[in-house]
């Protein structure tokens, strides 16, 4: 279904009631000075996939939670205006009475599971609707088939992978027969194949069942080609609903394909790789096959590499997590560690940080074996920012966290000046928590910095800040190893990429070679300019400006 059809159909049928309607909605939280949403009005129809775009703090989560009444019934605060969903006003209907029209799936689906088993979770919403048992059984079977969960029906929820959990969460609200599905960052924690599965499921729901799906996402490159319309929140409290091309023409937050289109002057702005490639023929003709890249710092710096991993074998109980892994990292390098969830990236990082001794083989960082050192000495050689930065926080204020770290305060001020000293660390956004954890780890000034999946929940602005910090570290002669499945970040910042699969290294080389080897998961610029090996919009911009 192409987008002009949708608009035409709506224009031709004015009596068709909108499924979701916001009327002059202004939302102010209890302790806040200013409203988060200001005078927001829009209408969403049936069978649409709406993408909500905006920087952190613009009110995306508030808007999504307002659709099913969690704001303000659950969170408190003051809501002016009306939100009407399928004819029901959220003023008079608390969330539990909207459970049969709106389904809400949060950022962490596992945090919303109430039962232990997949089948019980799917049936939970129906129990509260009081449906007769035969209807419940039939719907559970239908949803199991629709979402391809049939073979998981008796499994425990905490044993499922991230993508499977996301699908179970979607299924658990589908069984209630909802017409609107609201998802807050459904793919942020998933690796690319799992994200593709979830997005395929959502588009099928929109096209085959006529649901209205509203998604908030930071990683626009994954979702934007499926969006029927975009709801853009610029950050001043307003919201603008628009066709995707029009929205992307003006939005500061945009995926690489849009930035490339703006740079090259393509009109109307293409949103998918297929559309962009049609425009890109001329660009491909003018650019050389490879951009000029700085030579990777190599053995030319002389002496031992900073990190030498030889024949590392790591085991958890009876399963072998890493098999005969070899890795060298030189000073001044930024190495991206990529691979599916469960391929061993986190295990490798914990061994590099010295948290676990290797079962076989050796790990040498900065001339020492980190697992043999006491923690207070190990942090002088290697520091790790874990996947959950909030694990590091014990104090109840940012100042308390940085106490005792001499350069921590200045580092935080330079990284994230907007974070107040008195803020509670757990009240910060995902990006804020990451930057605080980074400030803590950078204050030890160890030669090797490790990061485990830092891009969860980060918007483009925060990612750019992170990339700038990592580049600065590399230029200062330190080394960074970064485990991520965000290929755009790897393309921006990594000089080398190592790919792990099933505990083994399957690729290890310059980022441009490794990342373009699989066209399906290469960065967007690489896919558009294939077979040329350009990775980022920045490289193209430099080449065009140079002449």
């Amino acid at each position, binding site marked *: 279904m192409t987008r002009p059809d949708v608009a035409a159909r709506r224009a031709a049928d004015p009596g068709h009631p909108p499924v979701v309607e916001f*009327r*002059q909605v*202004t939302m102010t*939280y*209890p*302790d*806040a*000075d200013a409203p*988060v949403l200001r*005078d927001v009005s829009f209408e969403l129809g049936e069978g649409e996939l709406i993408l909500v775009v905006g920087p952190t703090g613009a*009110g995306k*989560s*508030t808007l999504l*939670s307002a659709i099913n009444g*969690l*704001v*303000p*019934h*659950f*969170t*408190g*605060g*003051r*809501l*002016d*205006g*009306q939100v*009407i969903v399928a*004819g029901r*006003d959220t*003023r008079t209907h608390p969330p539990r009475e909207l459970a049969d029209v709106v389904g809400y799936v*949060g*950022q*962490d689906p596992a*945090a*919303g599971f109430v039962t232990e088993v997949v089948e019980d979770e799917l049936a939970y919403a129906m129990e509260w609707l009081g449906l007769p048992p035969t209807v419940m059984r039939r719907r559970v079977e239908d949803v199991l088939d629709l979402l391809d969960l049939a073979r998981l029906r008796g499994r425990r929820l905490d044993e499922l992978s991230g993508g499977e959990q996301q699908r179970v969460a979607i299924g658990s609200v589908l069984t209630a027969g909802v017409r609107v599905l609201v998802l*807050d960052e459904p793919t942020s924690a998933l690796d690319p194949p799992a994200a593709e599965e979830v997005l395929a499921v959502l588009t099928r729901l929109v096209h085959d069942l006529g649901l209205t799906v509203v998604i908030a996402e930071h990683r626009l490159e994954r979702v934007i080609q499926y969006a029927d319309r975009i709801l853009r929140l610029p950050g001043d409290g307003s919201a603008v609903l628009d066709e995707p091309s029009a929205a992307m023409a003006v939005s500061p937050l945009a995926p690489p394909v849009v930035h490339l289109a703006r740079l090259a002057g393509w009109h109307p702005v293409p949103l998918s790789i297929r559309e962009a490639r049609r425009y890109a023929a001329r660009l491909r003709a003018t650019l050389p096959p490879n951009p000029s890249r700085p030579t990777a710092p190599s053995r030319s710096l002389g002496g031992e590499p900073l990190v030498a991993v030889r024949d590392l074998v790591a085991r958890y109980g009876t399963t072998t997590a890493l098999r005969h892994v070899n890795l060298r990292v030189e000073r001044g390098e930024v190495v991206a560690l990529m691979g599916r969830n469960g391929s061993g990236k986190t295990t490798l990082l914990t061994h590099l940080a010295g948290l676990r001794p290797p079962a076989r083989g050796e790990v040498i960082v900065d001339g020492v074996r980190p697992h043999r050192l006491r923690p207070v000495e190990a942090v002088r050689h290697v520091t790790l920012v874990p996947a*959950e930065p*909030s694990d590091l926080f014990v104090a*109840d*204020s940012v100042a308390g966290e940085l106490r005792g770290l001499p350069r921590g305060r200045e580092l935080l001020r330079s990284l994230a000046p907007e974070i*107040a000293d*008195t*803020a*509670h660390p757990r*009240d910060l*956004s*995902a990006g804020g928590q990451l930057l605080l954890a980074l400030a803590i780890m950078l204050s030890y000034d160890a030669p090797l910095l490790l990061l485990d999946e830092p891009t*969860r*929940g980060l918007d483009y602005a925060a990612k750019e800040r992170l990339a700038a910090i990592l580049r600065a570290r590399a230029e200062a002669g330190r080394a960074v190893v970064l485990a991520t499945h965000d290929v755009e970040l790897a393309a921006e910042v990594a000089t080398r990429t190592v790919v792990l699969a099933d505990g083994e290294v399957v690729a290890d080389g310059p980022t441009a070679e490794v990342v373009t080897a699989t066209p399906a998961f290469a960065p967007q610029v690489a896919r558009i300019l294939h077979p040329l090996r350009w990775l980022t919009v920045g490289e193209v911009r430099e080449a065009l400006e140079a002449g």
Partner: protein
Amino acid sequence: MTSLLPRPAPPRSQAVQRTADSADAGRTAIRLRWRSTAAVTLASLVGVLAFGWPFLSGVRGGGEAVAHASDAPWVFLLILPLVLVVVLAELADGLLDAKTVAMLGVLAGCGAALRTFGGDVTGASPVFFLLMPAGRALGRGFGFTLGVLTLFGSALITGGVGPWLPFQMIAAGWVGFGAGCLPRLRRFAGRWPEIAMLSAYGALAGLVYGAVMDLWFWPFQTTGLAPGIAYDPAADAATNLSHFAAFYLATSLGFDVPRAVANAVLVAVAGGPVLAAIRRAARRAAFGSGPARGIPRTPTGDPTGSAADGEERVRPWTCR
């Protein structure tokens, strides 16, 4: 992990936070109305009988009372679970809020996890470390329910649903209830007088819990044993008390005193942060909130007309 929900703006300064803390010292998550209080009181009465019956049924002349006395442990094994079920059903009537249920479940899960780390079958001290601040911050009713559910939950996890369980449950419920009954020190919320009070209560609660569980165990363990330490249905209360004292000194005191001391130290060291964390969560959850009427506001000239139900003005409303 990043929250499902939008994060409200953080409070402006630490000073505001502190007064908010002390103001919350009076809020309760489960309101105890007269009927819930009555239910808890009656259940506690049965509980006191369930533990203290050896000191009650002394009678001259044996016969019927003696036969009943030997049945008493088994009778209470059946009655006490029923009583607990009834009182939980009555408290559950006020528990319909999802936030309370979720917080109960999560805190009970934490307590159960703590118990697998540090407790044995009869001991429950790590649980108290979480139970007492929760009872203090969230009220008596919540404390009672949390005590009962934590012990039940940890029994389910370890697979050990034994005959001691209903007695442990009600005793832990009393500990939580008592923590909620401690005096409100509004001026000292979060500071050392409150922590000291909790710490002392922790030591006392640990000792009493151990003694009470030992009292439960005593008639079972000593039937057929020598007089002087065994429960004697024909003797009067004072004699039985001395017998029990001998039994307690022989078996349990050596464990209970170090555990009570450990309890007190644990609460003194870590009770403050735990209390602050629970209060902060309760404030964020805004227990007891409900929509209140706000100030009516005229809409800004909406050309498409008024609301569907024909209201003239769009009324905002506030949840506190």
